[in-house]
């Protein structure tokens, strides 16, 4: 348990220091007496440069994580933010990693101001990605997992960066997570088996999925955004239905999922407007996950130019 700065300094002598770096910027985390978190962090990050450093007083870590019994704790020495201030002290390795994951997303937003981030999933179809903006219990993480099971590459299941200069989605290189318990009624045996086979770092509330490099994009991988699909999961039986919506309706959905606060609102608006202007925009209502995957594959498996027969 972290109680004061003196305890932190004393604990750091037993710390393992990890430098998490990408594109010339680095984030340093001290992990004290919890080897499983070092291994876990190495597992959930893809494409990042991860280097162990000797602990020295000359560099202050961005985050210090400790463990007492089954409970983890962390603090950000710069801002004095602690686990208790944010979500409460994590009581599992998966939960502690989830906090690190969250804070690393925040660090990315702060450091790479040329990008902005959206709360959404993004999955590759042909030569572009489809964005699934976050919505309350819309099922984007489970659908992302199902698309990975179908061989599609995941760019993100929760947060995706946008490169506004190129109007592209940028992967943040983090393993996807599904919420637990899984909804049993709307999921087939194959998906359940896929989730079991790829399960890693789980607790009662969440489960990371250990996807191979063919199913999860490294940080920095980028592709044009070809569609925006708002998900509407239904408890009622019925076929999945993909319907066109206006760019304005899609813009409404994206605006509420913007995480970046550093950019002026008018600049963010223009960037989001560019996304919906260049992409096709849809809603998809669905009950069965597999049905939803099938509808998406039919709609987006081919590049748009091929779909309309251009160039023939």
């Amino acid at each position, binding site marked *: 348990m972290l109680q004061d700065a003196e305890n932190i300094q004393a604990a750091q002598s037993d710390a393992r220091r990890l430098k998490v770096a990408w594109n010339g910027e680095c984030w340093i985390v001290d992990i004290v007496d919890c080897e499983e978190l070092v291994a876990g962090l190495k597992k959930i990050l893809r494409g990042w440069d991860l280097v162990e450093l000797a602990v020295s007083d000359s560099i202050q870590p961005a985050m210090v994580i400790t463990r007492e019994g089954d409970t983890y704790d962390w603090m950000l020495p710069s801002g004095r933010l602690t686990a208790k201030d944010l979500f409460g002290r994590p009581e599992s390795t998966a939960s502690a990693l989830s906090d690190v994951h969250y804070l690393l997303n925040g660090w990315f937003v702060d450091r790479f101001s040329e990008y902005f981030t959206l709360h959404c999933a993004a999955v590759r179809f042909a030569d572009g990605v489809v964005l699934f903006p976050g919505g309350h219990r819309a099922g984007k993480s489970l659908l992302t997992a199902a698309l990975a099971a179908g061989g599609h590459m995941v760019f993100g299941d929760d947060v995706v960066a946008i490169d506004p200069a190129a109007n592209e989605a940028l992967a943040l290189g983090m393993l996807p997570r599904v919420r637990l318990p899984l909804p049993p009624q709307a999921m087939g045996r194959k998906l359940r088996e896929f989730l079991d086979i790829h399960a890693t770092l789980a607790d009662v509330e969440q489960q990371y999925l250990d996807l191979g490099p063919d199913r999860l994009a490294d940080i920095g991988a980028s592709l044009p955004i070809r569609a925006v699909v708002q998900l509407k999961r239904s408890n009622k039986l019925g076929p999945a239905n993909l319907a066109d919506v*206006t760019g*304005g*309706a899609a813009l*409404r959905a994206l605006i509420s999922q913007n995480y970046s606060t550093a950019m*002026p*609102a008018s600049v*963010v*608006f223009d960037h989001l*407007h560019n996304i*919906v202007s260049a992409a096709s925009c849809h809603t998809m209502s669905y009950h069965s996950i597999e049905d939803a995957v099938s509808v998406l594959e039919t709609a987006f498996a081919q590049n748009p130019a091929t779909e309309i027969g251009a160039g023939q």
Partner: protein
Amino acid sequence: MSNLKATYGRNPAILHKEVDGEIFLIDDIQGKIHALDAMAGGIWRLLEQPTTVYEIVATFSAAFPDRKTKDLRRHISRFLDDMQHKNLAVCVTTPEH
């Protein structure tokens, strides 16, 4: 509750964008983007020229004759209060008592 005889208008610092009939208000000072629903969008359009709650209610009553005027007045007053609270609309003049 908004003063029914007071005149309200748009805050000139707020950017207004319309995309496919959806109205978005952009507040660069507070770093917020507001997406308006249909009724809010209608009120925002009326606020292009300073107007009173009475005038807005009269316009909506003519457009939606099946809606009770009392309900419309309540909704519109509440919306204007909210817009003032969010710095999107301003009270231009208040009648003397």
